[in-house]
Each structure stands twice: as structure tokens, then as C-alpha cells.
């Protein structure tokens, strides 16, 4: 029994942390968020690192690593609040991996290399589904009803922009008839996508916590650092409690995907529910620690808070996942 990372995984984590913090400085994130844009040059670098295809099989042109490695990058991507199409790419790739030989051969090598942009629905709707990064995608993955998904040609879809409070990612509503059904296990792909998003949410929460704790150490009121007051320090302790629960459940879910797939449905719903709650409550608590400055546009915290709320809503809310958990633990 060993619930830790191996050397290769630690290296992936460290590389992601370093690369993303160097590229996505707070100023850069703000610039992109205010422009609702991505940086193509950084995407090229990300593609060279092999991240789009990190969990795509080698025979499909990917790195052939597992969901654990993907989750480590996703967490760091949330931590950096990196405006990129990574999450949509991963989600699409997870569904494409369940595709027929033809579907996989046609799309996956390009998606894995970062050259072909793909996007996937982040809700179960068949009409007007929420699809981040749908514009400019060469292929769309949409729901085909309960437990099934389809590959859709974007030229046959109606794509409308969807302006949400989170501007660090680009959202769209997509409607399309037809498409080509994916023969594999769409449910499994959806579970994996939930774990990836839970990792992003964990990273968002961890970043907000770090910012709040650093501020609580330096901000002085009534003659001492506010972090010395228990009303503030206990709020910070609660943030760590939330972040660590979220992280434990997310890593565990990622592990089940490869090692114990029968546990993935329950594990992925637990992770997504917990991470959604954690990201929302920790970013809100961080704003409270910052006080008035945290409510200003000038401060960076609101970008995290907004991403937390939107990601919490995607791929099923905490409440929906808890309902699934209740069934999976045996409530009639």
C-alpha cells in the first residue's frame, strides 16, 4: 500500500508547476481573462510537452500515461488558472478513446499532438449543450442521450457564444443533429472527465488558500497580523481541510481508473462533488480573509472564484453527484 507519487509523477507535477507559473503570471492571466482569449504560442509549447495526449494510448499517438498523470497536470493548471483549451481537449480525447478503430485513427493522433482542436460537451444535454472551446474545434463530442456519445462535425452544428462569469475559458452552446455514435463506454469517459475537472477545482482551491494564508500573515489590523486571530486562522484551517479532502478523493479516483475500474463510478462522483464544494467554499472564504480588497476587480482572487463556480457546475453539480453517490452506496 502506497498512497504517494512515484519519481516520474513528481517530475511531471514539478514541470507543470514551473512551466505554468512561468507562462501564466497573474498579469498574463488577467490580460487573457479580460480579452477572453488564449495564447497560441503557449499552446504550442504545451503541445510539445505532450500534455494534450498525456493519457492517450501510445498507439493512438499519445503519451500512454494514465489518469493520475493527467490529474497532476490538471491540478496545476487549475492552480495557475491557466486560460487554455486543455480541459476541453482532454475531455474530447477521453471520449474519442472509446471510439471505433476508424474514429480513433482519424482524430486521436492530431488531438494528442495538440494540432487538431477538439471540444466536448460538459453537460449531458443533447440540445444547446455547454461546450467550452467549440469554436475553432475540428471535431465535437456531444451526448447522444443516456450513457452514449457521438462525434459531430462542427460545420453541421449551431455554435453560439455563452458569456459566463468565468472568462479564463471560452464557453459555447452547441446544438447538432446526427453525428456518428461512439461504440465504447461513454460513461467511463464521463467518469474520467469528472476526475480531471475535480483536479482542476482542487488546484483552484489550493491557490486561493495559499493566497489567503499569505495575506493573513502580512495584513495587520488592531496591531497584529490578522492570521493571529482565530476567527481568521480557523477559517484558513478549514480551507486546508477542504483542499486536502478534495485532493485525497481526486487522486484516489484517478488511481481507480487504472487499477480498480469497478470503483471509478463512485470514486469519480465523490471527487467531483467534494472538489466542487471545496473550490466554491475556499474561494469564498479567501475573499472574506482578504476583505474589501478581495472584492475589487484589481485583485486577482475573483478570477479563481469565478472559475470555481463555473467548473463546479460543469459535468454535474455537487448535488447531482451526491445523488449518484447515494444510489451507489445502496439507498433504494
Amino acid at each position, binding site marked *: 500500500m502506497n*498512497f504517494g507519487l512515484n519519481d516520474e509523477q513528481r517530475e511531471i507535477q514539478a514541470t507543470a508547476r514551473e512551466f505554468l507559473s512561468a507562462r501564466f503570471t497573474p498579469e498574463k492571466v488577467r490580460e487573457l481573462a479580460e480579452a477572453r482569449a488564449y495564447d497560441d504560442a503557449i499552446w504550442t509549447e504545451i503541445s510539445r510537452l505532450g500534455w494534450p495526449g498525456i493519457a492517450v494510448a501510445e498507439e493512438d499517438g499519445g503519451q500512454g500515461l494514465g489518469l493520475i498523470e493527467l490529474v497532476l497536470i490538471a491540478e496545476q493548471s487549475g492552480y495557475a488558472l491557466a486560460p487554455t483549451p486543455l480541459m476541453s481537449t482532454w475531455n474530447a480525447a477521453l471520449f474519442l478513446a472509446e471510439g471505433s478503430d476508424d474514429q480513433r485513427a482519424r482524430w486521436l493522433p492530431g488531438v494528442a499532438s495538440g494540432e487538431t482542436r477538439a471540444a466536448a460537451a460538459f453537460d449531458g444535454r443533447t440540445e444547446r449543450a455547454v461546450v467550452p472551446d467549440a469554436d475553432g474545434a475540428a471535431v465535437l463530442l456531444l451526448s447522444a442521450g443516456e450513457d452514449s456519445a457521438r462525434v459531430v462535425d462542427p460545420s453541421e452544428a449551431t455554435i453560439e457564444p455563452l458569456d459566463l462569469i468565468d472568462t479564463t475559458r471560452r464557453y459555447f452552446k452547441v446544438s447538432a443533429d446526427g453525428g456518428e455514435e461512439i461504440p465504447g463506454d461513454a460513461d467511463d469517459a464521463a467518469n474520467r472527465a469528472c476526475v480531471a475537472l475535480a483536479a482542476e477545482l482542487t488546484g483552484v482551491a489550493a491557490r486561493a488558500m495559499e493566497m489567503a494564508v499569505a495575506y493573513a500573515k502580512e495584513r495587520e489590523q488592531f496591531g497584529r497580523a490578522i492570521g493571529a486571530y482565530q476567527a481568521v486562522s480557523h477559517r484558513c484551517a478549514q480551507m486546508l481541510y477542504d483542499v486536502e479532502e478534495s485532493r485525497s478523493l481526486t487522486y484516489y479516483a484517478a488511481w481507480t481508473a487504472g487499477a480498480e475500474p469497478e470503483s471509478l463510478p463512485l470514486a469519480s462522483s465523490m471527487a467531483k462533488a467534494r472538489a466542487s464544494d471545496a473550490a466554491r467554499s475556499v474561494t469564498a472564504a479567501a475573499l472574506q480573509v482578504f476583505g474589501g480588497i478581495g472584492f475589487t476587480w484589481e485583485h486577482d482572487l475573483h478570477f479563481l472564484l469565478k472559475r470555481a463556480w463555473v467548473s463546479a457546475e460543469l459535468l454535474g453539480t455537487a448535488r447531482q453527484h*451526491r445523488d449518484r453517490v447515494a444510489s451507489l452506496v445502496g439507498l433504494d
Partner: protein
Amino acid sequence: MDLTLTETEAAFRDEVRGWLEANNPGEEPRSGTGNWIEFATDWQRALHAGGWAGISWPAEYGGRGASLIEQAIFSEEMGRAKAPRPANLLGLVMGGPVVIAHGTTEQKERYLEPILSAEEIWCQGFSEPEAGSDLASLKTRAVKDDGGWRVTGQKVWTSFAQYSKWCMLVARTDPEAPKHKGLTYFLLDMEQDEVEVRPLRQITGEAEFNELFFEGAWIPDENVVGGVGNGWNVAITTLMNERAGLGASAALGLRIGLDELVEMINEAGLGGHPGVREHVAKLQIGIEALRLGALRTLTATMKTGIPGPEGSISKWEWADLNQDMTAFATDVLGIEGLAWGEEWSHRLLRSQANSIEGGTTDVLKNIVAERVLGLPRLR
């Protein structure tokens, strides 16, 4: 990352499980009842004979030098089998490890074997009426006398005192020294007239704990552990041992409770109620988070060798979860769930101590804030 047991670990688990299947004596009599001590002593003798008493102790002292993982497996299996507590729980978990870490050769020879065999029961004299969370402010005095010490003062929340031969006593030996420095750790013989044990009735109606009164109780010099004035450091060792590895077995206890609860809910036809579903799922997620967090901590501790302050989060989670679960269960059961002496009403009442015993949740939050997050101390 591999959350399955290795072959060796699985073999260890099977060995424990097989032994427990053959030897588990079943549910213990309610604590405080007259026959508990005989029952629990017999049980500990059986454990000792099987080589399962003090498994974390090094083999040279009669233990098995079990790794942290093996200790966690052992606790989990004990929980799964609903095996009762051994009579000398505190001797095994705290007394022995302290003597091994800080005791003299003579002390090791004198005390360790009778702890394992339950021939001598141990209790812990730390808390006082005016020294709870602020343990280092304790007032019980030990004054130097010819060849030993005379102790005067009061302790409280002392489990097993009525059965104990030895009390792990922390007393103030230097009232002039700063509060953490003037303390000494003693082994006090409970069998003397100068020690009085009074049961302390708690809100469940039982008396799991006692008050201790010392009126010039005698401790010979050779019963100092770890040196005069070093009591705080020695006491901290026992508290570390108390919290290490608690998480995994605590999560298992909760898991067993939640399984029962799910059955009760289904029997009551409440499984489709959205509020009930939401609450069950929150408990499920919390219990899994506790279990997994404990395993992460365990892995980290195996690497560093030192239990870190992160264990404080496990204790805090456990108290939250058990209180939430017992309150929810009594909601599900309705007024009958509050009948005196019923299983869940008893658990509900008992759980109210969970956020106090072994470190209050409020103090655990301070520990997390100061020692994990590095926030300034309020002084």
C-alpha cells in the same frame, strides 16, 4: 500510487483476520460494569498469547516490530471483526512506547512484560480541572522527599484508573521554571492510601472516566521517566503515539455505522427522500476522505519517520463525521431513536465528547493553522 496491499501486507492481513475469526470473544460488556475488566483481561491474554499485543513494539521488548501499514491493517481488522478493546489499552498504546523510548534498562525490564500480559493495567494522569487544552499549566505538585517524591493534586478524565496499577503522571517539580520546563513524568503506584479514585459520571449515565486525588502520594526516584524536568517532552511522545495511525481505523468504525444507517433508511422507506440522500452521500464522501487522507499521511510518515501535524485534520474530521452521523441517525429513527439506552441515542450522547477528547477541535484548528499553514500564534 497503489492502494492495494502488497503480497506481504495481504498475507499479514489474512493472518490477523484468520486469528481474529478463531479468537474474537465478541461484544464487550458496557464499560464501567463489574465484569468488563475480567472480560478484557482475558481478551488481552489471548492477544498476547497469539503475539498480537503491542504489535508496534520492537521484537526485543515482546512486540512484533510491525510497520505503520501493518499497524493500520491490524486496527482495521480489529474494527472489521468488531473485536473488543484489550484491558490495558493505554499501557499498550502509550505506556509501553514511552518506557521503550525514554525508560532505563531497569524500567524496561520491570514494566514492559506486565503491560503486554495485562498483569498490570495502566492509566494516564495528564488532564486537570484547570489544565485541559493548556496541559502545560497543570498544577499537581511533586515535592522532593528522601529517595523520592510526594505528590499532591488532582487529575481528571482518567480512564481505567479503577483497574490500574500504574499511573503515567505528569506533575510540576519546579514551580519556578517556565511552565513547559518544570514538569516531570512519573510512574505512580496506584495501590496506596494517598491515591483516591472517584468515578466521574458522564452524560450517557456511565462512568468511563475517573477523578484522581493525591494527598502526598509516594513515588520513588527510580520511577521518574526521561529525567526530572523533561516531562513535557516525554508526554508529547505519548500524545503522538495516541494520534498516529488513528485515521484508518476511525474511518472503518464510521463505515460500519454508515452501512447500518443505510439499511435502517431503506427499511424505513426513506431511501428516495432527497434530503436523506444528500446527507448519506455527504457522510460517505467525508468517511472516504478521512480514510484516504489517513492513508496519504501514513505513506508520508513511512518516508519521514515522524508523524506530522496533519494527523490533527484526521481527528477533526472524525469528530465532525461521528457527531453528524449520530445526529442524522436519530433524525431518521424519529423519537424512538432518542429512547434511553438505545444504541443510537447512546452513540449520539457519547459522540458529543468526540470534539473534546484527545485534543479539542478548536485546538486542532490552531495546530493546523500554526504548524501546517505557518500562521502566527495568538500571544
